[in-house]
Every structure is written in structure tokens, then in C-alpha cells.
């Protein structure tokens, strides 16, 4: 595609030489190192003198090190990474007058937005890969467990889902940078979206569910189930929840479902215990496939909207 490679290379170079990237990378590297180190140390202590199951390796990602696990860290701060890489993608160039210069060259207009998206997505993939490599290395050293093919496969799947998840936020940020002319406004809007989806959706879901089942007695099992259903239905609107669900069975082979199972009786507990061995990777994938597909769809839709808006937009900065 005409112009794509030129813009892609320039964007990558810009990212690598920017302070924004440096700070982000330092922050992420530090947090992931500390978390994985603490988690690894705790685990090494707990497992001392025992035979280590191979699934231990994945626990490095899911075990809480300094209050939270790495998976939680990516769930929560991954969006910020995506937003920060994209919130000024288009409007900065528009304000500085370089957008019309770019577009008056013989390139396709969509090359600009495609290359910007691709370059930022490349940065995301690089950062995530670095984190994962660091953790894997630490795991080898601290735990002395070599991940088997199954664990590596799971990490790879987790990596891909995570890139898609953060790319979704990147697409949102680029859309904001197209719609809003001022860089400060789009930064603020991005932050607001992040806070809304991180905190308010779950609080809101809880409030809505409670108010809808308010007249039922608090210990009525039917009401509890209904409340949980409403909460789940609302919180699936949040990409965070979607992502958590999509990766749940991937990083934790012993999980069988993304649902928060409400244990009502002894029989259910019995049946849970009976099938408590880890799932093979393909089974784990099957469980969360709808979530993954939904996540990919959201990302694609979001990017497609930016694309369409950008292709029709007036170029000049007025």
C-alpha cells in the first residue's frame, strides 16, 4: 500500500525516541519484575521439597505478588498503555499542520491511519513480549521449573489475547483523536473512559442488580441467582471483564468456566471436585472462545469506525 511503510517506519521511530514510551516502559518493566519476583519467591517457599507440577509456571502470572497479579496488572493498566499510545495520533498532526502536508503527498488516506495503528500495536506487542520474557526468565531462575509445550502454548494464547485487548483501547484512543480537535480534550476523554470502564461499570452493575431485586428477601436463592445474572450481563459491557473472562481459563488450566459459580448445594460441590484436574489447552480455549471472538470483534469495529470517520473528515484544521 502506497505510503504505509514510510509512515509505519516514522511512527515506530517516533515511539522509540519519545519520553512517553520510555517512562511507560520503565514503569511496566519495574512493576512486572517486582510482582513476578515476589510471586515467585512466595511460591518457591510454599513448594520447597515438593514435586513441582508444570502448571506452577503459569501461577507466576496469576499469583498475587505485591497485592495484585500480573494478569490483573495488564487488565487494569493495559488500557492505559493503549490509550497513551493513541490519544493524540491524528489531532496532534492536525494541529501542527503536518496532516495536510502528509495527505498532499501521493499516498492513500487510509495509509495514515493504518500505519499509525500498526505502529502503536507493534509497540504494544513488543512491551508485552518483553514482560512475558522477563517473567519466564525469572520463573526459570527462581522456581527452577521449565515450562512444557502446553504452558508455552498457553502463554502464547494469553499474549495474543492481551495484544488484541490493548489494541482495542488503542483503537478507542485513535477514534478520540480523530473526533476531538484538541489534544488535551482527547487525553481527558481517554482517561474518563478508562476510569468509567475500570470502576463505574462494576459498581453500576451491582447497583442496578440490587435495585432490580430489591423486593425479594435477601436470602432468597432465586433472587441471588437473578442478581448475579444481571450483574454479569451488565459487566460484560466492560472490556476489562471481557478480557478477564477471555484469559481466565487460559492462564489457569484448572478453571473450567468463566462464570462465578454460585454454589447452592452439596451436590454441586461434589461434582466440581470430581472434575478438578486441569483442562488441556484446546478445551480451555473452547470455553473462552466466545469471549475472545467478542473481544476481537470489538477491536475491529472500533478501528473500522475510526477508519470511516477519518476517510470522510475535512482535512484542514479550523
Amino acid at each position, binding site marked *: 500500500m*502506497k*505510503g504505509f511503510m*514510510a*509512515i509505519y*517506519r*516514522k511512527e515506530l521511530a517516533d515511539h522509540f*525516541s519519545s519520553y512517553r514510551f520510555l517512562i511507560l516502559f520503565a514503569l511496566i518493566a519495574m512493576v512486572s519484575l517486582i510482582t513476578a519476583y515476589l510471586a515467585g519467591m512466595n511460591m518457591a517457599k510454599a513448594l520447597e521439597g515438593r514435586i513441582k507440577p508444570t502448571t506452577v509456571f503459569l501461577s507466576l502470572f496469576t499469583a498475587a505478588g505485591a497485592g495484585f497479579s500480573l494478569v490483573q496488572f495488564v487488565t487494569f493498566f493495559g488500557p492505559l498503555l493503549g490509550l497513551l499510545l493513541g490519544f493524540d495520533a491524528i489531532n496532534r*498532526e492536525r494541529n*501542527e*499542520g*503536518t*496532516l*495536510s*502536508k*502528509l*495527505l*498532499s*503527498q*501521493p*499516498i*492513500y488516506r487510509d495509509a495514515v491511519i493504518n500505519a499509525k495503528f500498526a505502529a502503536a500495536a507493534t509497540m504494544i506487542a513488543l512491551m508485552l513480549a518483553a514482560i512475558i520474557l522477563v517473567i519466564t526468565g525469572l520463573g526459570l531462575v527462581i522456581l527452577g521449573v521449565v515450562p512444557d509445550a502446553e504452558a508455552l502454548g498457553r502463554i502464547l494464547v494469553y499474549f495474543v489475547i492481551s495484544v488484541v485487548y490493548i489494541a482495542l483501547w488503542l483503537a478507542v484512543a485513535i477514534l478520540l483523536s480523530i473526533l476531538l480537535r484538541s489534544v488535551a480534550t482527547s487525553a481527558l476523554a481517554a482517561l474518563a473512559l478508562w476510569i468509567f470502564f475500570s470502576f463505574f461499570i462494576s459498581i453500576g452493575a451491582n447497583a442496578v442488580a440490587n435495585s432490580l431485586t430489591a423486593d425479594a428477601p435477601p436470602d432468597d436463592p432465586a433472587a441471588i441467582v437473578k442478581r448475579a445474572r444481571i450483574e454479569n450481563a451488565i459487566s460484560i459491557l466492560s472490556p476489562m471483564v471481557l478480557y478477564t473472562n477471555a484469559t481466565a481459563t487460559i492462564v489457569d488450566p484448572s478453571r473450567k468456566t468463566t462464570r462465578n459459580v454460585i454454589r447452592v448445594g452439596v451436590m454441586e460441590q461434589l461434582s466440581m471436585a470430581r472434575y478438578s484436574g486441569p483442562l488441556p489447552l484446546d478445551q480451555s480455549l473452547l470455553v473462552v472462545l466466545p469471549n475472545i471472538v467478542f473481544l476481537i470483534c470489538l477491536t475491529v469495529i472500533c478501528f473500522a469506525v475510526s477508519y470511516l470517520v477519518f476517510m470522510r473528515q*475535512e*482535512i*484542514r484544521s479550523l
Partner: protein
Amino acid sequence: MAQKPIIEAKQLTKVYNGRPAVDRLDLAVYEGEIFGFLGPNGAGKTTTLLMMLGLTEPTGGSVRVMGLDPARHPLEVKARIGYLQENMGFYRDLTGRQSLAYIAELNGLDRQTAEERIREALEAVAMTAAADRKIVTYSRGMRQRLGIAEVLIKKPKIAFLDEPTLGLDPEATNRMMELIRDLCRRHNMTVVLSSHFLHQIQKICRRVGIMIDGRLVAQGPIEQLARERLGVGDRTYSLEEIYMHYFQEH
């Protein structure tokens, strides 16, 4: 003039929010000339140039640039036109040379051709010495000259220079105008030049167009406009007088 125009607009119209910014414009620019595009701020000059470049879709009418419709063949048209926008923007953290290299890359030039053209363009605008400094450190005049170099890199048949003298001191303005005239002659480039420096325009353009409130109120050789409007044959006249005459009439 029996020659066929290199740029031709017919009834070209652009409506913004129900208000015409360009109103049924008929314009012809001929090969090799420097066409002076005049008019007060907000008259619609930039909008017209953007439509001729294919960066803005016309609401009505048609444009042909070297026989091509910019709305349907944007890439071909943009490859042939060098556009220096008003209030041109730069990637300030790049050096002048890097900025030129980026433009060359966007135009699909191979490395060797690009290097050659960058050297030529830098020499043509007398920027060789400052080429490896960051653009942030450039003065206004240097930026404007770099802008011209970015146009030259493409070796375009046509150049649109939208207020290239904006914000320059009188001396730099004179030099810029001379540079434009030299380049136009040397490369046989057709130039559409918009500027408010009527005195200098009169020196380097033979034909001008005057736009007021979206309408092209006059178009033709300066001496012809003078004859028609001011009724002067041999008396010296200035473009300024002609311009003010139209301005007061509308």
C-alpha cells in the same frame, strides 16, 4: 491565448454549513506561468487550492489538473502538484534533511534519487548549512524555505504556494519571491501563488485572479485588468490600485 490550460476549474463550488466558501468559480492556469491568486482573508483561496489538489471534495462544478479529475485520481494529481500550505507545519524534532527524506520516501523515491534531490533542493533554497539542525531551531524564513524545498523534492509540474511570504520581513519576502521566480524558470514549473504582497506579485506574475467572498471577480493579465478597470493605457499603474478598485466595488 490559444494554449490549453494546465489547470481548469468550471463552476467550481464549495459550500460549508450552507454558506458558499467558493462560488461557481471559473479559472484557468496555463503551463509555465506564475499565476497570482489574490484576495482578502476568507475569500476562499485555500479552499479552491484544496479542491484542485483533491484534498477537499467540491460541492459542485469540476476541476481538471493536467486533464485529471483530482477527486477520482487523487494519487496521480498529488504526485504532480507540490503544495506549500499556508501556516505550514513541520515535524519539529526532525532535522531539515530528515524531513525532506520523509517526504521523498512518501513519494516513493528510491534512496539514491532521494539523496540527490535532497542535495539539489537544499542548495536551491540555500539551506545546506542548516540541513542537519532540528527544525525547532529554524527561524520563520528558514522554515518557509524548507517548505519550498519539500515542494522541490517531488519535482512537480505544478506548485501551489499558499501565502509563502506570510510572516516574513520585507527583505526575506523579496528574496522568497525571487527564489520562486528563479525556480519556476529553471524547472519550467507552473506556479499558483497566493500572497498579499501585491507589489512583489506584480513583479513576478503576468496573470492574476482576484477572489472576493468566494467569487472570482477578475482574472487575466495585469495590464489588461488595468486597461479595463482603471482606463489607463500608458500611465504607470500598480496592482494595488487595481485590487483596491475591485475591493471597493464588491
